């Protein structure tokens, strides 16, 4: 296990232990008048642990690839010797950009990255969606304020009405041209 993988592995083990012990309490059915709200809120917990877990994977991936790029850069700069003057600085910079850009592009092209990015995006959106639902449920609705769900319903209705109006206009034009 390398240094940069350790947080991921540690978190996975911690999560396993947590879910088998105290975390298990969260899955118990809630009681009382706020039962529904409490249950909804508890559902957020696994979403955030999933997000944290895939985020750790991404951090670990980027740490590894940065390390690889640094190694390659080291190999290149080892070949450069003598006094460093501004011309050489530019040479070092060019080497650095080229090495890092190429190394990262190799990584970004890999199925490993696209798979991880897909998972990360998925978890991120799930967590944001949950946040939005909680915001609507716990704050906006009790204050009788419009929610994005309400606005979306209006948008859908508007789209449908606009489409109908356009279709009717087209038919009217056809009929008037036919006269």
């Amino acid at each position, binding site marked *: 296990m390398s240094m940069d993988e350790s947080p991921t592995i540690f978190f996975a083990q911690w999560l396993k232990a947590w879910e088998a012990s105290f975390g298990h309490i969260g899955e118990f059915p809630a009681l009382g008048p706020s039962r529904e709200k409490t249950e909804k809120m508890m559902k957020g917990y696994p979403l955030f642990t999933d997000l944290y877990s895939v985020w750790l994977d991404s951090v670990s991936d980027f740490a590894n690839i940065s390390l690889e790029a640094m190694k390659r850069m080291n190999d290149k*700069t080892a070949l*450069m*010797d003598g*006094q*460093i*003057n*501004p011309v050489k600085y530019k040479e070092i*910079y060019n080497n650095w*950009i080229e090495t*890092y*850009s190429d190394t*990262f*592009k190799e990584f*970004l*092209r890999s*199925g490993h990255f*696209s*798979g991880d*990015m*897909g998972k990360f*995006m*998925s978890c991120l*959106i*799930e967590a*944001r*969606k949950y946040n*939005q639902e909680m915001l609507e449920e716990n704050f906006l609705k009790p204050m009788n304020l419009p929610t994005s769900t309400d*606005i*979306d319903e209006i*948008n*859908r209705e*508007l*789209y*449908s009405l*606009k*489409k109908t109006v*356009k279709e009717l206009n087209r038919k009217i034009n*056809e009929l008037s*041209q036919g006269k």
Partner: protein
Amino acid sequence: MIQKINEPDFIRETFIKFQKGSEVISELTEILVGVTPHEIVYSEDKMKLIHYKTTVKNPCPVPVLMVYALVNRYYILDLSPDKSVIKNLLDRGFDVYAIDWGYPSGMDRYLTIDDYVNGYLNNAVDHVRRKSGADKISLLGVCVGGTLSVMFAALHPEKVKNLISFVAPIDFETDKSLLNIWAKEMDVDKIVDYYGIIPGDFLNMGFLLLDPFRLLIDKYVGFFEHIDDKKTVENFLRMEKWIFDSPGQAGEAYRQFMKDCYQENLLIKNRMEIGGKRINLKEISMPFLNIMAEFDHLVPNESSLPLTRAISSTDKESMVFPTGHIGMFVGSKSQNEVCPKLAQWLKPRSKKDENNIGVKKNKTNHNKSKESLK
């Protein structure tokens, strides 16, 4: 390894450069783009149809409608007077129109590809035909605008005299572009259901991730190296304005495009449907020009080239220019090679012919034109 820094000349020169650069930047007021004279001749919801003022006495009778992508803005085709595909074509005697798709807002999230192709684009084409008096027009689709134009030409071939696909993705089964690789792993439904309108910044993040070190660091280092050159600074700022002028994407259209094109590659297989109609590329039989950029990192040639084979046109040609995706619009090759070759191909095909009746806008022919438009 670093022994000493002893280059006072370099430090002094750098200081002078930055001093001059700060003067250049402070003199700049507004970054103007899209300055070729034009008027808006038709609009529908957020979409605007732009007609550019002709610069020759007798322009070609068949107008050219340029359809830009839904991502970023159309004015990359008219970035500055000396970097303008539109001006170049006007000066070569074409009557040019362009579509500005605008910035979708919440109420546009349900717009589908059908709405774009059979709605907005179809209405814009009809308007150009009415205004110019031409039965058929030349359709020049750029990038994803090219994909939409190809869909349109397959569904409404009777309205298109010439079709030009300009760095347009058609076959998405390639791993030459990172976008094609990443798109396969995306949960498009989740993204669309959450955002509704896909934010421009979300797409920009993807574009920047294609080469983060060059696009987020090296580009700006290069800018500071030339900060004392007013023209370079102006061009850089124009490009910068365009790059980050990113409209959001209508969710439903984005959903279908990502799933049907990027993930399932239905278009090239003649299995994609919009508005309940299947898009059969074999319906494209008009003269066709396929323009590609050799070093295109967004739309690799493998993605565009199969279109030439997939259509049934007999008069068809592919051209590849040694530049990149953006270089096709703003690079020196764009003005000196791409536009002249494009004009050379299009001009002989933009003459009135027997099938192109109703071209003259006199009273008698106007009615005839209306009839044929129905």
